């Protein structure tokens, strides 16, 4: 479904990604692990088109997407959930959800479905985006992206900065979404939520991929975990 080949991405003149390659198949959940500054967020920004790679190729469903503006990439079926959540502060919770609504054939997400997955958001409907706790904001940012009815969901550190109990809830909710058949790419620096949800893992450091394999294989490779993940 997603095929990333040898991408090199930059912020201005600083070279961040050095030939990253990986793939995600339909229906899979894949995690991208690596410590702070490894280049995970940059990889996601490269995919959605916010930081387009200078070279390499990214194919989504067989079509090249490098060079397309972010809104086109999103319309093709990629949903991006940013690490800093980026809730629109002047919009209510309900408006934050509805502003992203995009209907097309095969669309499964509407307000009712969002509210049954995240009941908390319904009770906060009329609150402004800024009046939410961290966990509520995280639910809202996921809900907002789901309203675009994506086929591939990019989740950047969905558990970052949340209390352990809230992380568990988020993990359950993401599990439900996965069961609906959504393909997921999750990145994280502390191995937890992502690894529980995923089928396969890539480990990256300093803008390069250093390991790929199933979750079981990753669990066996203690030296990879020690060297790149500090666990």
């Amino acid at each position, binding site marked *: 479904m997603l095929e990333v080949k040898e991408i090199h991405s930059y912020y201005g003149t600083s070279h961040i990604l050095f030939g990253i390659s990986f793939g995600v198949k339909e229906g899979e959940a894949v995690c991208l692990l690596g410590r702070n500054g490894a280049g995970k967020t940059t990889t996601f920004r490269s995919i959605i088109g*916010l930081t387009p790679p200078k070279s390499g190729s990214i194919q989504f469903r067989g079509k090249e997407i490098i060079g397309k503006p*972010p809104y086109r990439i999103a319309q093709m079926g990629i949903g991006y959930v*940013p690490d800093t959540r980026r809730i*629109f*502060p*002047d919009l209510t919770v309900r408006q*934050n959800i509805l*502003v992203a609504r*995009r209907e097309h054939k095969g669309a499964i997400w509407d307000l009712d479905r969002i509210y049954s997955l995240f009941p908390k958001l319904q009770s906060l409907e009329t609150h402004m985006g800024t009046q939410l706790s961290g966990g509520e904001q995280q639910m809202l940012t996921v809900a907002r992206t789901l309203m675009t009815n994506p086929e591939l969901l990019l989740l950047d550190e969905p558990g970052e900065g949340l209390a352990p109990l809230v992380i568990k809830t988020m993990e359950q909710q993401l599990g439900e979404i996965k069961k609906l058949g959504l393909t997921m790419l999750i990145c994280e620096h502390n191995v937890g939520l992502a690894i529980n949800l995923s089928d396969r893992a890539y480990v990256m450091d300093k803008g390069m991929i250093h390991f790929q394999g199933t979750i079981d294989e990753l669990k066996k490779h203690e030296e990879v975990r020690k060297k790149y993940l500090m666990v």
Partner: protein
Amino acid sequence: MSFDVLFSQFMSGIARGALLFLVASGLSLTFGVLRVLNFAHGSLYMLGAFLSYSIWKFLLMPVLGFYLAAVIAALIMGGVGMIIEFGLLRRLYARGWPEQLLATYAIILIITDLVKWAWGGEFLSIPRPRPFTGAVFLFGFPFPSYNFFIIILGLGLVVFLWWLVYKTRLGDIIRAAAQDREMVSALGIPIPWLFTWIFVLGAAIAGLSGAVTAPFGSVALGMDIEIIIECFAVVVIGGMGSLPGTLLGAFIVGQVYAFGILFKPELALAFIFMVMAVVLIIRPWGIFGRPER
């Protein structure tokens, strides 16, 4: 100072404020969403005024002619706005302020020369349209009823923009994009089209405002710079990109001007900028504005 003088200055300040709101609202909306300060906004206003004059002359219709000319001029200016956004501005969003300033300044020069070439340097004017030819009496004092037309139009625009920005899905997108256009784009919303239509709307409002000033005084070269200076004062005082801020700013500038003229006509503009300076010292981002992130 007698009550009738004060009251009449107050009312003329209200009318002036309404006109300033008409023009400044487009400027503020474009800035709020596109983050481009369009110095040529006053030129769109001027071109709208000249266009409506010619359309009015061409139509030769007794009552409806004026209103029809104003609407047509607004539509044409919307089209001009589309050409400007598509041909020039969208290349400049990623650039810095100096380039944006130069480019919009170039538009000012182009429109000025265009107007000189097409209409010459004369003062043009349209008589007040019916039913706003006479006077209205308030507390026994007469006021030109055309002023009330401008005030009603200004209030109408306030309601329309409020509805658009706060009550529609497009308004949700506008407010979201004003804060985080990158995220809006990542949600699949075509930002380039949004920007084009916002600019078209701003240009059409500028054109309409120009058209309705024709019966006020004179349509002439230089009206562009005159209005844009006061509009900047309005949006700086009220807060760039804020609708209630633009309304309050227009009210304040209108009043300061009206009473400034009463005390020292030569300094009316200076008074406006003194108020602006005070606001800038106390609240650099304007009364309803927000500090830049």
